[in-house]
């Protein structure tokens, strides 16, 4: 049945972005000036969509027969995705020129992936989720291999594609089983009658396969094997986007699934699953990261650990912890994009300067970058007053609320371990002598992105309540 006009109007951010993508393609194929125009065009697009969504956060409705939710939680996620994409674009215009991969497709693919994420974040129907997921994933597969002349990029892209399709297979199988047992794809319907399906093993297996598929996307152990290779191999700016917005999108789906199950007060069947995932991810991520000297690889393991911390919130399964995860994601997006932007500035033309050694004595080369790198490392380590601390704090607090104190303790312990490798970077930056000379090419865009992320990380750390209150109000 056709929706009424008002419902379309509520979808304005998505429609604007879609039209923007179409326009971008037209600009590229007809004017051939995509390389110059698209960075600014997509920045404006992200800026508009992000802020339009957050301004209309009050207009919280279910439309299209309950298939999608606009406003509220979806708005918060839209904001996160778009700001992440905006920062990535700002930071990477010079980076991709440096590598000679300045294709306008880069921007078009980022736009499309953001659209996919936005669809995921608003979906309340398994099929809509799947549609968004595939749109996002396929764009990422291509983005990962953007630098097609470099074999590491091709390797990353292919590995990501193969394992990603593998996970998608499980998701589809899960969807099929769930649909087969419940006869519905609507998440509401499924959880409304959860008790009725609860004893049906096929239904539970289906749900579990669905969760496992998304565990793959959030990079949780033991479905994390692709992460280090893909994050290390892909272009740095792409890694920044994949590891932040991509993860946030996958989490948004998990939050919808578990959040809906919570609102129908279904029993928390998957608590054990998420507890195990969380413990494994935090510990494995933190411990292996210690042995890494390549910064991108280190951050890949750190990203696994962070997925673990957030999974603690999933295991806790209460509204507070879900709000905490959302806060954590926002904080994580900013600090990680900041860190990856700095890495992209340092790494140089031939990807040689990625190891810790290249960061020795960075303070002498650029005090600004040194200070910001330390800021992001402190934030990732979760040291107050940076935003990262409050992300962890809210999630752990949520866990304690659900009587999962042991899980919170494991989280604290592994974040203690993680301090070691984060602060090691700071030690190299400030206390080691330079052992190689090179010029750091800075640009206005990347400086802007770094300053903005740094500012936001500090701001959300000093005034965590401002964001948290907003989130708590809209995560029901």
């Amino acid at each position, binding site marked *: *049945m*056709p929706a009424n006009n008002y419902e379309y109007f509520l979808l304005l951010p998505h429609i604007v972005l879609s039209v923007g993508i*179409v326009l971008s*393609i*037209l600009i*590229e*194929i*007809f004017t051939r000036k995509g390389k110059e125009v698209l960075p600014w065009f997509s920045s404006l697009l992200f800026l508009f969509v992000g802020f339009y969504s957050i301004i209309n956060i009050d207009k919280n409705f279910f439309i299209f027969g309950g298939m999608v939710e606009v406003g509220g939680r979806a708005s918060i996620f839209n904001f996160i995705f778009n700001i992440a994409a905006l920062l990535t674009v700002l930071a990477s215009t010079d980076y991709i020129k440096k590598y000679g991969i300045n294709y306008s497709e880069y921007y078009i693919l980022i736009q499309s992936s953001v659209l996919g994420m936005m669809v995921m974040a608003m979906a309340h129907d398994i099929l809509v989720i799947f549609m968004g997921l595939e749109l996002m994933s396929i764009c990422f597969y291509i983005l990962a291999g953007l630098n097609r002349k470099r074999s590491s990029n091709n390797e990353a892209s292919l590995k990501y594609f193969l394992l990603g399709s593998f996970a998608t297979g499980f998701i589809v199988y899960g969807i099929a089983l769930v649909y087969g047992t419940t006869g519905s794809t609507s998440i509401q319907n499924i959880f409304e009658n959860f008790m009725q399906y609860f004893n049906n*093993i096929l239904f539970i297996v289906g749900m579990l396969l669905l969760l496992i598929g998304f565990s793959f996307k959030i990079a949780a152990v033991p479905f994390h094997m692709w992460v280090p290779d893909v994050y290390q191999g892909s272009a740095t700016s792409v890694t920044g986007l994949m590891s932040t917005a991509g993860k946030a999108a996958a989490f948004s789906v998990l939050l919808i699934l578990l959040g809906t199950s919570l609102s129908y007060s279904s029993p928390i069947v998957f608590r054990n699953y998420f507890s195990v995932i969380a413990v494994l991810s935090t510990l494995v991520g933190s411990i292996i990261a210690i042995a890494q000297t390549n910064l991108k690889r280190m951050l890949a393991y750190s990203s696994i650990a962070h997925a673990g911390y957030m999974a603690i919130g999933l295991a806790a399964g209460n509204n507070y912890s879900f709000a905490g995860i959302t806060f954590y994601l926002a904080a994580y997006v900013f600090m990680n994009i900041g860190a990856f932007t700095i890495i992209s500035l340092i790494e140089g033309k031939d990807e040689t300067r990625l190891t810790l050694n290249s960061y020795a004595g960075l303070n002498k080369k650029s005090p600004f970058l040194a200070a910001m790198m330390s800021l992001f490392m402190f934030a990732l380590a979760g040291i107050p007053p940076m935003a990262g601390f409050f992300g962890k704090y809210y999630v752990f607090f949520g866990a304690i609320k659900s009587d999962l104190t042991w899980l919170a303790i494991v989280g604290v312990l592994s974040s203690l371990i993680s301090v070691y490798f984060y602060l090691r970077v700071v030690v190299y930056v400030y206390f080691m002598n330079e052992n190689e000379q090179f010029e750091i090419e800075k640009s206005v865009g990347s400086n802007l992105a770094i300053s903005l992320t740094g500012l936001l990380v500090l701001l959300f750390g000093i005034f965590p309540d401002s964001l948290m209150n907003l989130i708590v109000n809209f995560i029901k």
Partner: protein
Amino acid sequence: MIIDYIPIILVIIVAAAFAGIVVLSSVIFGPKRPNKIKVMPYESGKDPIGTTHERISIKYYLVAILFIIFDIEVIYVYPWAVQFKSLFNDFGIFAFLPMFIFLIVLELGFLYILMKGGLKWD
């Protein structure tokens, strides 16, 4: 629950065992007198040339991928066209518009390939 599936599992086991036994017995009992022609890969009766890992021109690949665009188009458009009359009676112009947008987006992909030179044969 699980009990219900035991017959299926039994069938699987029996089938696998039967197939396995048949294949194995031919390996065990069958006479083996290999010669050069016998161990040659089967290539429709011709003598094989070169390795089995033959490289195929990427052009085939492109055409195959492009075909998907039209493949998908047909999947959507055909049922829609069949039902168009009744849809139009019910929804008026709204029966037409979504498909119109869909086709525009689809053709945009085609246009992209065309302008990027994806169809130039050499």
